[in-house]
């Protein structure tokens, strides 16, 4: 912690802050009395699942609540000044000078029709800097966030920048005024792991350099562990635990924190080692009256006292507090795991279920050829999970859609049970259509919001299983039981279900016709971690029961590692590495896989040193020559990488890699992180 002198007040002080939203004529308390202090120059992390009030707290601090929200009690002090009682003019000055906010979606934070340069310059002119100076200072601000060519970036419109660049610009704008408090609300949630890692490095560096206090809001404990010194855990508008990061994450003293930590697949856990813990139950409704401890309804340790009396924030260690009557035994909370499942044995000596050879897809866009997928060959055996990883734009989703027949491949073919599949969905037989199904990322879009649960499932049963009438009704209830969707939801519509329930419904629909392979396209990335754990458990259970195969797409390495038997790594539409999960993760890896793995922030901290990838992912319209990864490769050899594309060769049994560096050499090389690659073209 930094030394606070008497005249420098903390960057932020919340004192018993309470916020209500007025919904349907009733005030509903969303923040129920939160007190916290962020010292000058410190980084404070606020974690909790969606709906806990993290963002509301951030909005209340800058007095930017929606029209139906207001602060009912408590104080907000920013650098010693009371923000709640400010007049409009003072508030404007406060926002212009002292507080900055960075939101999740950088694309939405920038005005799409104004050049980036003008938007940054405005930050300075609004504070009275002369226009000519402002421009120079804007360039400096961009240099600060490591944008190599500020003057050209300033000429561009936001849509001409990648997500990572946009977020840098937003951060540059936020830091430009040297604020005493910077609020980051899920700043990297929409970004790829490699880009996320870069942005986090950047923010951490700048924070240390500029000595800015940071309030970092995230649902990702790994990110918080990496970025913050102190962390507060928010649940239902109540701070339930607070302390130094290593204390809270290493020795959690609140059942909610314990639960959150347990439901994340980490440390290389795999589905055959056991199932993930979940936090049973749901977040209380907005503004629901909670007489005792807010977590009681979901707490496995709850006793009578928890229902009647809310625990005080009790000191459990040096600067570590917990709001639990039983904080000494929080860590001994019973686990929710049932007996281990017997997963199907994958018989690789037999014919694979699905095989695709030299699959390629070229999209035409504004007269350019976009090579979304190029020459990918792989196979999936019955009952196994093939994990598909890669940054966005690497062709994961296009590959999956080509297999399903939603788009026809440009080259190559797909075989199911050694029979050639028609390229387009419309030409495939009913059996073939039924065999391959998908669970999409966002259940809000994947379920027709005008149809009820019954209608969605009954229709799927009619089309995929040919069932109608009584039989279909019976099968529907069985399906709902299989995905743990309570029968009372049968006439509900998707909007009446929570995110996790919606995803269960989507899974039930995919399983209506007993599919042989289900593509899971980021099925948990829109969900909270506790719900994610439950959905992953469900998918694994279904696999154990029905011997179904999965093609599992995810950017979350922990999740992919948990569910996958084999891993395929894609980069720019090409298969870079393919092999059994433990081999791919334990290494030696392809240099790209190595960088991808090193980018993931872990809760346990430490771990491997992050490998910086130079530059941006190249355009698929104009892929690099030779090895497509050579422009960013940290283990770049030289001319051979630029001129010749390495073939995908089997290095060990079942482990394929596309790299000029021999496996043994990679093994030795990867004992030490690569030197930073300097002077790369572009």
């Amino acid at each position, binding site marked *: 912690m930094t030394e606070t002198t008497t005249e420098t007040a903390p960057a932020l002080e919340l004192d018993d802050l309470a916020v209500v939203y007025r919904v349907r004529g009733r005030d509903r308390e969303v923040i129920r009395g939160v007190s916290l202090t962020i010292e000058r120059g410190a980084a404070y992390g606020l974690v909790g699942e969606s709906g806990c009030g993290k963002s509301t707290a951030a909005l209340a601090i800058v007095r930017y609540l929606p029209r139906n929200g207001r602060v009912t009690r408590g104080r907000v002090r920013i650098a010693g000044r009371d923000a709640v009682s400010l007049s409009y003019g003072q508030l404007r000055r406060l926002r212009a000078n002292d507080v900055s906010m960075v939101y999740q979606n950088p694309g939405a934070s920038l005005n799409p029709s104004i050049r980036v340069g003008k938007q940054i310059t405005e930050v300075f002119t609004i504070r009275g800097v002369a226009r000519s100076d402002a421009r120079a200072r804007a360039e400096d601000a961009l240099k600060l966030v490591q944008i190599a060519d500020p003057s050209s970036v300033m000429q561009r419109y936001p849509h001409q920048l990648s997500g990572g660049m946009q977020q840098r610009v937003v951060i540059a704008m936020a830091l430009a005024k040297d604020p005493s408090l910077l609020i980051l609300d899920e700043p990297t949630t929409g970004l790829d792991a490699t880009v996320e890692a870069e942005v986090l490095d950047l923010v951490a560096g700048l924070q240390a350099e500029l000595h800015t206090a940071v309030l970092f809001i995230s649902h990702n404990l790994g990110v918080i562990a990496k970025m913050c010194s102190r962390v507060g855990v928010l649940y239902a508008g109540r701070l339930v635990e607070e302390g130094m990061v290593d204390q809270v994450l290493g020795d959690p003293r609140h059942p909610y924190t314990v639960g959150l930590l347990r439901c994340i697949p980490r440390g290389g856990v795999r589905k055959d080692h056991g199932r993930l813990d979940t936090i049973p139950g749901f977040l209380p409704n907005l503004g629901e009256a909670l007489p005792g401890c807010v977590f009681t309804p979901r707490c496995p340790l709850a006793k009578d006292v928890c229902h009647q009396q809310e625990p005080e924030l009790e000191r459990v260690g040096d600067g570590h507090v917990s709001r639990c009557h039983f904080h000494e035994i929080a860590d001994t909370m019973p686990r929710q795991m049932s007996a281990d499942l017997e997963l199907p044995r994958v018989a690789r000596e037999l014919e694979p279920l699905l095989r695709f050879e030299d699959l390629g897809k070229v999209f035409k866009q504004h007269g350019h050829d976009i090579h979304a997928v190029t020459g990918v060959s792989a196979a999936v055996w019955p009952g196994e999970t093939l994990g598909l990883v890669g940054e966005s734009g690497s062709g994961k989703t296009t590959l999956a*859609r080509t297999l*399903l027949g*939603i788009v026809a491949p440009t080259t190559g073919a797909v075989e199911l049970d050694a029979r050639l599949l028609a390229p387009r*969905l419309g030409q495939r037989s*009913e059996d073939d*259509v*039924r065999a*391959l*199904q*998908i669970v*999409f990322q*966002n259940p809000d*879009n*994947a*379920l*027709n*919001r*005008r*149809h*009820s649960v*019954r*209608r969605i499932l009954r*229709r*799927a049963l009619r*089309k*995929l299983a040919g069932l109608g009438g009584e039989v279909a009704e019976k099968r529907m209830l069985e399906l709902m039981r299989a995905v743990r969707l309570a029968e009372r939801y049968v*006439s509900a*519509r998707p909007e009446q279900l929570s995110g996790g329930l919606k995803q269960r419904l*989507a899974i039930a*629909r995919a399983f*209506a*016709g007993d599919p042989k392979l289900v593509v899971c396209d980021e099925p948990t990335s829109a969900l909270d971690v506790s719900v994610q754990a439950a959905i992953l458990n469900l998918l694994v259970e279904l696999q154990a029961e029905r011997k179904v195969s999965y093609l599992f797409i995810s950017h979350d390495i922990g999740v992919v590692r948990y569910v996958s038997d084999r891993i395929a790594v894609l980069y720019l539409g090409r298969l870079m590495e393919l092999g059994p999960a433990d081999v791919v993760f334990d290494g030696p890896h392809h240099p790209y896989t190595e960088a991808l793995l090193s980018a993931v922030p872990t809760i346990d901290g430490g771990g491997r040193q992050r490998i910086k990838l130079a530059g941006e992912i190249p355009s698929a319209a104009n892929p690099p020559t030779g090895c497509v990864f050579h422009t960013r490769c940290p283990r770049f050899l030289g001319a051979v990488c630029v001129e010749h594309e390495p073939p995908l060769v089997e290095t060990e049994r079942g482990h394929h890699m596309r790299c000029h560096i021999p496996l043994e050499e990679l093994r030795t090389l990867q004992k030490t992180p690569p030197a930073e690659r300097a002077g790369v073209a572009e």
Partner: protein
Amino acid sequence: MSTTVDPALVPQAAPPPSESRIARRETLVQLLRSPTFIIGTLIVGWWVFWAIAGSSLTPHDPLDQSAGQLLRPSHGHWLGTDSLGRDVLSRVLAGASDTFKVAPLAMLLGVGGGTVIGLIAGYFRGVVDEGISLVINSILALPVIVISVVAITAIGSSNATLIVVIGVVFTPIVARTVRAAVLAERDLEYVAAARLRGEHAPYVMFVEILPNVMGPIIVEATVRLGYAIFAVAGLTFLGFGVQPPSPDWSLQIADNYQLLNSGTYWWTVLFPALAIATLIVGVNLIADGLQQVFDR
């Protein structure tokens, strides 16, 4: 045929599924909280009432010529009488019926046709969309009144012709709105999910997508109703629409507007004109109210 038109005129190209009852109730509650919608409904409701009641409740028979000609508004004839001695109040009240026979049906035709075409263009995209869009844009380039007048002259004037002509003219306009809404929907994954269980295009279009684009369609329908009333009034005024001796508002204006030259007899024109104006304002208020609810 006596036309009964619901005041909160909500045309539906396909019956909504029964599960949507809850959502419909929510929408209704929101509408009932909107003053814009309430006022619009009251105004339109008033004219619908008179369109149905017709001459049976008016103080005089709207076709009765027994009173003196061009009487000023007085106790006996609140809004005076016209050049043939007919009671203006009774004619204004009864004048709603022909408009209400033609405008809603023309609108339904236009919305129905436009919805189907818009769904097809938006769903299939590609060549189909380009072809349909070309036709739509060419039709939209022609002045509505000119096409209508030509068509009516060619086919002959009757209420049925009027309905068909206005409906056909409105079809491309509605199709364009529906196409835009469908384009936004068809990339959502529930459409891909439907195709992945082997659904055919008509099912995907009408059962999956259509219920999700009903909001814009309902708003467009209300706006179109206003324009249909406009079109009927305009064509009738020019002599191509509703034919005498109907007490239609535009006919009244057409019959009497030359009397305005002398500056007297203003009541023969002002009151029917006000009637048209209030009805169109009422319909537009309903459209605004619906739009606020659907765009929330």
